[in-house]
C-alpha cells in the first residue's frame, strides 16, 4: 500500500467494460462513416474520441446516444444490447455541441427538464436541480433565460442538465468548442474535477488534441471511420503506432528511409549524403524495408558546434524561428532540403536567443528520442 493504485481497468483482463462496441459499422448510402469498430470503455473512465472533422467521431457518439442505429454490429451497455432502444429509454445523456438549451425555459427549468420527465416528486426535483446548480456554480442564475447568460454559463447549464439524471454514461460533443482558449483551459480542469466527483463515465468527442490529452484517461484517435490507436495520453504521445497518430498529436519530425536492423536498434538511411539515423526499437524489421522515424521537436537538441558523441547528428541552416514565449521552435533545413524542427525551452527571461536566421547549426538526439514506425 505504498502508492495509490493506478486507474487502468483496460489493463485488467477480468474487468467488465461498461460499453462494448462489437464490429460497429455505420453507412450513410455509399458513405461509410464508421467502419467495423471494436472498443471497450470502462466504468468511471474519461474517454476521448479524437480525430479531424469527418472521421466519424460524432457519428459514433450519436450511435451511443441512440440518434443513429448502427448498420452492422452491436453495442452493449452493462452487457445489454442497446439495439432498438430509443434515446429516451437509454441511461445515457448527451451534452450537445450547440448546448441545445431550451430558450423558453429558465436555467432551473432547463436543468430540471429531465428529472420532471421521470415524474419525480417536486421536492426531489428541486433538491437534485439545486445540487446540480451548486456543482457547476450557477446558484445565482436560477431564473435567467439562456439568452441572458454568457457562453461559459450556458456551457455549465448544458453540463448540469446532462448530469442531472445521473446517467451511466455522459456523452460530450465538443463541449468546450464554443469557449475562448483561456476559459477552455479552466473549464477542462473543472470538467475533470466534476467527472471525478460524480464518478460518471464520460465520453468526449473533440478535434482538439490538447484537450483530449488533458482531460482523458484514454484517447482513441480516429481516422476515416476506424480507430487508429487507443491508449492513455502518454502512450498516444510517446508511443504512437503509426505516422498518422504521431502526426495528428502534437508536432513531429518524420524521416522515411530504408531500415537496417541491428541488436535492439535500427539504422535508417533516410537521405543522400547523410549518415544513417540510429534509433532504439523492439520491432523486428526485415533488412531493406521502408520504415519511419518519428521524433518530437522538443527531443531534438540544437547546437552551434558539432556534438561530441551523439549517435544522431545532422548539420543544417536555420530557416525559421517560431517564438511562442515559453518555447522557441527552430526550423532547420538539412542539406537534402528536408526541414527538421527542434524546440528549446526559454528558461531564462533575459537570455538572448542563441541562434538566428541563416546560421549554420547542428541538430542531435539520442537513440531513444525517436520511435520507429512501420507505417
Amino acid at each position, binding site marked *: 500500500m505504498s502508492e495509490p493504485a493506478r486507474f487502468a481497468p483496460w489493463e485488467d483482463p477480468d474487468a467488465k467494460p461498461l460499453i462494448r462496441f462489437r464490429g460497429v459499422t455505420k453507412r450513410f448510402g455509399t458513405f461509410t462513416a464508421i467502419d467495423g469498430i471494436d472498443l471497450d470503455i470502462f466504468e468511471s473512465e474519461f474517454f476521448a474520441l479524437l480525430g479531424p472533422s469527418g472521421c466519424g467521431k460524432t457519428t459514433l457518439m450519436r450511435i451511443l446516444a441512440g440518434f443513429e442505429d448502427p448498420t452492422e454490429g452491436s453495442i452493449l451497455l452493462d452487457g445489454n444490447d442497446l439495439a432498438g432502444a430509443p434515446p*429516451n429509454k437509454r441511461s445515457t445523456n448527451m451534452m*450537445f455541441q450547440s448546448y441545445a438549451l*431550451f430558450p423558453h425555459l429558465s436555467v432551473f427549468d432547463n436543468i430540471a*427538464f*429531465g428529472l420532471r*420527465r421521470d415524474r419525480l416528486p417536486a421536492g426531489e426535483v428541486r433538491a437534485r436541480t439545486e445540487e446540480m446548480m451548486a456543482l457547476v456554480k450557477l446558484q445565482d442564475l436560477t431564473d435567467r433565460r439562456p439568452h441572458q447568460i454568457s457562453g461559459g454559463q450556458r456551457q455549465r447549464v448544458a453540463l448540469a442538465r446532462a448530469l442531472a439524471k445521473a446517467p451511466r454514461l455522459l456523452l460530450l460533443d465538443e463541449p468546450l468548442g464554443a469557449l475562448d482558449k483561456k476559459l477552455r483551459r479552466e473549464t477542462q480542469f473543472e470538467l475533470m474535477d466534476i467527472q471525478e466527483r460524480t464518478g460518471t463515465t464520460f465520453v468526449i468527442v473533440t478535434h482538439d488534441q490538447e484537450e483530449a490529452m488533458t482531460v482523458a484517461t484514454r484517447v482513441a484517435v480516429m481516422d476515416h471511420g476506424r480507430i487508429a490507436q487507443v491508449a492513455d495520453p502518454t502512450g498516444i504521445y510517446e508511443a504512437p503506432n503509426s505516422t498518422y497518430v504521431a502526426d495528428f498529436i502534437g508536432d513531429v519530425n518524420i524521416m522515411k528511409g530504408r531500415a537496417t536492423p541491428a541488436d535492439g536498434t535500427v539504422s535508417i538511411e533516410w537521405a543522400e549524403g547523410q549518415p544513417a539515423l540510429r534509433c532504439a526499437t523492439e520491432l523486428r524489421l526485415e533488412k531493406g524495408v521502408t520504415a519511419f522515424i518519428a521524433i518530437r521537436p522538443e527531443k531534438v537538441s540544437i547546437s552551434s558546434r558539432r556534438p561530441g558523441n551523439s549517435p544522431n547528428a545532422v548539420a543544417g541552416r536555420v530557416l525559421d524561428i517560431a517564438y511562442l514565449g515559453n518555447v522557441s521552435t527552430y526550423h532547420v533545413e538539412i542539406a537534402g532540403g528536408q526541414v527538421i524542427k527542434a524546440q528549446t525551452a526559454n528558461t531564462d527571461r533575459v537570455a538572448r536567443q542563441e541562434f538566428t536566421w541563416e546560421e549554420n547549426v547542428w541538430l542531435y538526439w539520442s537513440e531513444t528520442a525517436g520511435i520507429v514506425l512501420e507505417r
Partner: protein
Amino acid sequence: MRRLLIVAIPYLWLLAFFLVPFVIVLKISLSDTALARPPYFPQLDLYAGWTGVRDFLSGLDLENFAFLATDALYWKAYLSSLRIAAVSTLIALLVGYPIAYAMARANQSWRPTLLMLVILPFWISFLIRVYSWMGILGQEGYLNQLLIGVGIISDPLTILNTNVAVYIGIVYTYLPFMVLPIYASLGRMDESLLEAAEDLGCSRFQAFRLVTLPLSRPGIIAGCFLVFIPAIGEFVIPSLLGGSGTLMIGKVLWEEFFSNRDWPVASAVAIVLLLILIVPIIIFQRNEQRRQEAES
C-alpha cells in the same frame, strides 16, 4: 433634413390615408341622414364664418350610436362576426399548423418550392378565387358531383349559402397568413433541441408538446391575429358564399350604405367595428414587439 423626411413620410401616409378618412367617417357617423346629396346633414359652411361652424357643431350628436344599441340586429351581427372569425381562426390553425410543420421539417431543397405553393394562390384575384368556390360548393357543383359520383351520398349537400361555406371561404383565403408566421418560427428552431428533449426522456409527442409547441407560440399568435382581424370585417366571402342566415357586420355595413342609403348609421357601424378591432390589433402589435425582442 433627410432624416426628418424619412420620419415624415410614413406619418404623412398615415395622415392622408387613415386619419383624414377616419375623421370624415367619424363626422358622418355623428350626422343625421337626409334626402340630399351627400345624403347627410349638417354640412360645414365655412362662408358663414363662426356661426357656420357653431351651427355645424351643434348639428352633430351620438344619435346613431344610440340607435345601434337599441336595434338587436347590430350587436347580433357584431357577435356573429366575432364568432365566425374565431371559429375560422381555430380551423385555420388546425389546418395550417400541420402544413407549416411539414414544410419546416421538409428537405432543405424542397422548402422554397413548398413556400412558393403556399403563396401561389395570391397570383390570382381574390374575388375570382371566392367565385370559383361557388362553382365547387353549389348544389350542382363539383363537390356534390364528385360525392354522388363516388356514391358516398345520393342527394346533393347544401353547402353554398350556409355558414359552412363561409368558414370554408375564410379558412381557404386566409390560410397562408396562418402558415407563413408559424413556418417562420418553426424553421428557425434548432433541431438539436428536439434531440436534447428526447435524450432527457421525452417521447416524440412530449418533445413536440414541451419544446416545439412553446417555441412556435409567437408564430401561432401572429398567425391567429392575421386571420382573425381581417375575418371580422370580411364582406365579400359572406355575401358571395353565405346565405340569408349569415349575419356578419361587413355585410350589414354594406347594406346600410348601398341598400338603405343611411350613411350616418353605416358610418357608426364602421366606427364601432374599428373600436372592436383596436383591442386585438394592440395585442398583436405587442406580441410582434416581444417576438422581435426575443430574437435580437
